């Protein structure tokens, strides 16, 4: 059966197709899921899949099982990941050479291969089943969950998992105002940054009088290190299409546009495939499933820039103009794409819509906090043991995310801060670890939810240096139109850099605060208005670190090069010459078997001697 060549004319046709697919798939309940997500692909999962395929072909096992090259499974740190279904046996760091053993032992005989099991980084406990791994167990994967079970480019897989049922429900059993009421009741808030209630946004567009309206899906994802939207589009593109169709129906838009950064070629490819599949089946386009609703979706790509994710800049980019923000009002529902009423939602926001329609607002609300329902996907990175994508109910505490799911800080170091909300978010200290991750709490703490970036920092991170890092990013990413944003960021950076070099003064710190508040207050778009957050939040929670740099000319974390010095402890030094040979600056002197010394003026502070010395004789002060 090639589904691509049939056209579904009624909802019943879809039900029938689903039954057919399920019947056909019943026999291969057992399948092998090889993660094809971003992280695993970069650690070689594509090769692993090929070897699996060859092995299955060669040994005539093709009829016994299917191989699925899935979207991101979440634990990118341990890639390539393979899960064997129906049991859900989880293998990590799988190499090509492991393939034969996995098939012969685990798949055919049900034996477990110890060495491929996931081991808890803290207590060393090993886990066999995916569902038991603490990283996954504590998550609530209503958006990412299906990634395990399907090939992103297989509409059959998606339909058999209940796909497009929410479209049927919305189009046949609900009026647009009812759909909007359900979204409002679910208290769905935008996952792209600002957290605006989606129901209200949809309502405004529904109320706008116009023959032509547009619905744009924002997949610009400019937050460095974040890949939530990418994983959704690559791993489960149909769920986003479904959200977009329902959004179009509710708001009265007849055209949807997905704006993807061209740096995401797989996402672009998978979305385009998905659109073609849905069109062929009659799930998209003219008269969807005979309901009389028309909706088409196209993909628009552009060179990803952080600022073009801002809504007005995004519209400009889709229209082919320079991706620069403009004054709001007029809002996009008044004057959006090509001057028509337009709604923009983030990828993840839209992926939530099918769940809400299928399972109802109550169930969605049960997952979140009082003020906002559902889950949030975070991209957990930095000095944490389990990095990857985590999806948790809104309101879970930072501590649970970082320690229970993330497995705590790498190498037994101490937690220092966590940056939420991307480059324009803020760093939160230990004292806020127990605060829930919801929109209000993060805002009042001086950070924000943003799109879900979460960077964990340990005791060896210098907070002044962190402020410098984000300012440098923003200095390049600002569009440069507003003087306050362009020059303001660059001058904040100037002062922060002086401080990291031990050249700052208390007056300058005051000026920095004053300037930060003006940049925030007087810039045109969200970028400038939040650009001071990294500065303000680090000053708010780590001001003593600023003072250490300014008054004592000392970097407590030992990061700022101008403020640290390397030296050799004569008692511990064995005169082994190792550091002397490795030092790129030829800054180390000493006779063999005699204590060595470092010449301060030649030392480039690269830290190689510290890493090299086996006797812990090199110290950083």
């Amino acid at each position, binding site marked *: 059966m090639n589904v691509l060549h049939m056209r579904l004319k009624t909802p019943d046709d879809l039900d029938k197709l689903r039954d057919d697919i399920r019947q056909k798939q019943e026999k291969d309940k057992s399948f092998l899921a090889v993660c094809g997500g971003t992280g695993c692909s970069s650690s070689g999962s594509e090769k692993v899949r090929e070897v699996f395929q060859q092995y299955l072909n060669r040994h005539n096992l093709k009829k016994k099982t299917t191989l699925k090259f899935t979207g991101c499974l979440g634990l990118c740190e341990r890639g390539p990941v393979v899960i064997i279904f129906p049991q859900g046996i989880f293998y990590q760091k799988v190499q090509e050479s492991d393939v034969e053993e996995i098939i012969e032992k685990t798949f055919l005989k049900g034996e477990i291969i110890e060495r491929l099991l996931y081991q808890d980084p803290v207590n060393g406990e090993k886990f066999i089943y995916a569902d038991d791994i603490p990283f996954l167990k504590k998550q609530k994967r209503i958006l990412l969950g299906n990634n395990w079970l399907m090939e992103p480019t297989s509409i059959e897989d998606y339909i058999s998992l209940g796909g497009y049922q929410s479209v049927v429900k919305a189009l046949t059993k609900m009026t647009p105002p009812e759909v909007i009421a359900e979204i409002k009741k679910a208290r769905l808030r935008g996952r792209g940054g600002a957290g605006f209630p989606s129901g209200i946004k949809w309502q405004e567009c529904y109320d706008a009088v116009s023959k032509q309206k547009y619905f744009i899906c924002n997949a610009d994802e400019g937050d460095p290190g974040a890949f939530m939207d990418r994983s959704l589009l690559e791993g489960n593109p149909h769920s986003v299409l479904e959200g977009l169709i329902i959004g179009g129906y509710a708001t009265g838009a007849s055209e949807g546009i997905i704006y993807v950064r061209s740096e995401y070629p797989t996402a672009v490819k998978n979305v385009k495939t998905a659109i073609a599949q849905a069109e062929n089946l009659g799930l998209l386009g003219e008269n969807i499933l005979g309901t009389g609703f028309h909706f088409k979706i196209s993909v628009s790509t552009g060179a990803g820039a952080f600022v073009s994710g801002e809504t007005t800049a995004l519209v400009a980019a889709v229209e082919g103009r320079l991706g620069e923000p403009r*004054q709001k009002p007029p809002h996009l529902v008044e004057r959006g794409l090509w001057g028509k009423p337009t709604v923009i939602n983030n990828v993840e926001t839209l992926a939530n819509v099918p769940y809400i329609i299928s399972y109802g607002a109550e169930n969605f609300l049960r997952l979140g906090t009082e003020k906002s329902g559902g889950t949030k996907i975070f991209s957990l990175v930095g000095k944490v043991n389990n990095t990857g994508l985590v999806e948790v109910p809104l309101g879970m505490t930072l501590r649970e995310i970082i320690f229970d799911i993330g497995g705590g800080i790498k190498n037994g170091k101490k937690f220092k801060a966590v940056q939420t909300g991307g480059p324009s978010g803020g760093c939160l200290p230990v004292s806020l670890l127990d605060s829930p991750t919801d929109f209000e709490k993060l805002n009042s703490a001086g950070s924000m939810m943003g799109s879900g970036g979460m960077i964990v920092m340990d005791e060896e991170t210098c907070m002044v240096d962190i402020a410098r890092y984000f300012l440098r990013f923003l*200095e390049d990413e600002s569009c*440069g*139109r*507003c003087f306050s944003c362009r*020059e303001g960021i660059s*001058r904040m950076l100037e002062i922060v850099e002086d401080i990291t070099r031990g050249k700052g003064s208390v007056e300058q710190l005051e000026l920095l605060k004053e300037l930060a508040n*003006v940049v925030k207050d007087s810039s*045109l778009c969200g970028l400038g208005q939040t650009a001071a957050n990294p500065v303000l939040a680090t000053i708010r929670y780590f001001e003593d670190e600023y003072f250490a740099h300014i008054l004592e000319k000392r970097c407590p974390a030992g990061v700022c090069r101008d403020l640290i010095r390397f030296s050799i402890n004569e008692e511990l030094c064995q005169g082994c010459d190792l550091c002397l040979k490795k030092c790129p600056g030829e800054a180390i002197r000493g006779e063999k078997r005699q204590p060595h010394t470092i010449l301060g003026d030649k030392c480039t502070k690269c830290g190689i001697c510290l890493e090299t010395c086996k006797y812990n004789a090199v110290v950083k002060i």
Partner: protein
Amino acid sequence: MINLTLNGMEIKVEKRTTLLEAAKFYGIEIPALCYDEALSPYGACRLCLVEIGTGNHSRLVSSCTYPARDGLIVRTHTERVIKARKLLLELYLATCPSSRTIQDMASKHGVTTVRFKQKNEECILCGLCVRMCAEQMQGKAIGFVNRGIKRRITAPFAKKSEECRLCGGCMYICPACQARCQGPQEENPVCNACLNLSPPCLDYFQEAMCYMDPCVACELGTGRKAKFTY
């Protein structure tokens, strides 16, 4: 007509009026560097800030780009506005001190110290020249390139543009090209800068970009004595 409150006055303005236009009409002065009546508003200099709304929900917006809306409460001279404006002017002085327009504005608003490091930019990227060229001279000879801190004004392909008719409109409107008044205490009373100038554009281009005589660069003090004369 749109009804709004401006500094406590109930006022009425036509649809599509901006807050800056409304304030001007009612005789309230708001500093503006990137605004010109004859050109479309651009919102780049951020000096025309006003505060809209009240209480915790109030915020600053650029009045040249913000449209008048029914029921809007606008205040043009709050503490927050004035503080921001003064700091921005201080930043302008630190960035482009050679502009007479900026110097005058700073004095008018009581900005007397500069706490930032001194830079000497010749352009504040207000975009007046670009809009002048495109909207009034029907040319599109100059435009912006790059973003963020690398943003600057240039001609397409960094070459003398075919579109340029040498009208000088861009220079006429440029606020950074208005040289600072040196005053009687000037260290060197004889300037002579307009004699035998090498226009600064020759630092970037193969040929002179205009035939303004004298080259306004003299007023900037950036021109140097050179072999090249018109």
